[in-house]
């Protein structure tokens, strides 16, 4: 349907705006995380949120979820002011392994997305089962749908979380580092799942990540947060040495090599685990199976 030449050329984002932020500012006490943020996310648009550690990426998602109030400015979702706990917003958190002691199989985690917010004991129900079946097919989790959650790998669990987030026909998907601690193969799988879902439904995607590369080919726009400042634009407009150097207030180099982007010289680089380019293969969790 939307067949554009590349991620930079005005892509699949000619849909209606599902989320609008106007002059939004978030402060915690004295500290201003970010200010004067204007952003429209359209149905079908993929926006990556990048930035320094502690720059307020996750807080931005929390503000959109209505869990943190904006210090000033407005935020509207589908034309209405943000309210807490909107069913039309899906949320995919960081991967964390479910431990034993959770009475859930794969399909039950997805079912919580369908009607986990409703009160009462969940009696078997055909409508619910059909909704769960459709979601499980969508993320190709049929082979292990009846397996206990605690026996699944991190990647398999993350697939289910995407399915859970897609329940209730959301118009906006918020992903908070969903690729963290997944191996490269599963990073690609999960990113592609998000990519196909946003085109099919269509829904806007806000994707917080410390590494742009797994989603580089899908991203329409980048929102970069650093030092209380914000840059929004296509990856080619924002991920440039001059732009990021200005944002960080110190020299930062953006190197493009083999279709990948490596950002060198950010303050985060001094921490060995916070680099922008993760080429590590599989976390221990992923290899556990």
């Amino acid at each position, binding site marked *: 349907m939307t067949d554009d030449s590349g991620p930079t050329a005005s892509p699949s984002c000619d849909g209606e705006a599902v989320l609008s932020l106007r002059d939004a500012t978030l402060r915690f006490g004295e500290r201003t995380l970010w200010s004067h943020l204007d952003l429209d996310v359209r149905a079908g648009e993929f926006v990556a949120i990048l930035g320094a550690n502690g720059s307020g990426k996750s807080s931005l998602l929390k503000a959109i*979820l209505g869990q943190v109030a904006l210090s000033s400015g407005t935020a509207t979702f589908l034309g209405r002011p943000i309210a807490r*706990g909107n069913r039309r*917003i899906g949320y995919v958190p960081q991967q964390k392994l479910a431990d*034993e002691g959770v*009475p859930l*199989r794969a399909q039950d985690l997805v079912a*919580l*997305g369908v009607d*986990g917010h409703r009160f*009462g004991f969940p009696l078997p129900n055909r409508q619910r089962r059909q909704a769960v079946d459709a979601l499980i097919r969508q993320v190709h989790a049929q082979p292990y749908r009846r397996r206990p959650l605690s026996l699944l790998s991190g990647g398999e669990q993350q697939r289910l979380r995407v399915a859970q987030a897609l329940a209730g026909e959301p118009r906006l998907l918020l992903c908070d580092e969903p690729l963290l601690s997944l191996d490269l193969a599963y990073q690609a799988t999960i990113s592609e799942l998000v990519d196909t879902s946003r085109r099919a439904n269509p829904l806007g995607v806000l994707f917080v990540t410390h590494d742009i590369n797994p989603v580089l080919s899908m991203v329409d726009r980048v929102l970069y947060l650093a030092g209380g400042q914000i840059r929004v634009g296509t990856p080619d407009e924002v991920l440039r040495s001059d732009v990021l150097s200005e944002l960080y207030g110190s020299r930062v180099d953006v190197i493009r090599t083999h279709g990948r982007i490596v950002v060198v010289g950010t303050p985060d680089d001094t921490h060995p685990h916070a680099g922008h380019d993760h080429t590590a293969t599989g976390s221990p969790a992923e290899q556990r199976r």
Partner: protein
Amino acid sequence: MLGLEVTDWWSKLFVFDNYGELVVLLQNSIIAGAVLGVVGGLIGVFVIARDMPFAVHGISELSFAGASAGLLFGIGVVPGALGGSLLAALLIGVLGARARDRNSITAVIMPFGLGLGILCLSLYSGRAANKFGLLTGQIVAIDDPQLGALLAISALVVLGLLLIWRPLLFASVDADVAAARGVPTWGLSLVFMILLGLAVAVSVQIVGALLVLSVLVTPAAAALRISSSPVLVPVLSVVFAVTSMVGGIMLALGGSIPISPYVTTISFLIFVVCLVISKIRGRARATA
């Protein structure tokens, strides 16, 4: 000589003289045990899903303190136990939202409660059997009004749990996502703590403060070893808890030994069997 001692010991453990009459006489206790099994089996699923077994232990010690104070000041064991465990449950719920905080707060509350309870018991000049019973359990002492209170509180806990079951499960396994989806996680956790406080208060009077975990945790832990189905786990947990409670009471009826060793042993054995089953299954899966 040794053989004689062992038979003597054995005949103390299992006494079945006039068994039929005793069952009739102590039917209150058997009913109470069965009801407590249902309560413990259901709430235990959440105690484990929310990683709170230690908190349960802490609540039961404060419940013991409350019950002892109730005995000392003549308010009655039931209101005392209720007051103590609700106070502890709310304290732990409000101050211990994160697991690490919760453990230290529980560890602070627990010895204080136990000490307070012992103080009240030493000052109390009534029947000695009552005293010991609050720590290790008793079956003889359940009269009709007490059974009535027990049934009412248990019904409240079970109905409350069934009402909030789904969102509570969501909030217990994935609090962030549940909150994002509009589940009132904070309110639910408060309601859960109140229900847990009520369940503990009921259990303390029957199995005793020291052994509450064998009803509120062990059956659910056993069920989770052999199933992950959100329907089968609570069902199995209830079956295990009722079996332990009623079985323990039936075995304890004739003798002079408190019921708790019987209850805890049955409950422990069920857990061991489930553990073995899960290990065998795990091995089968690994070789498959």
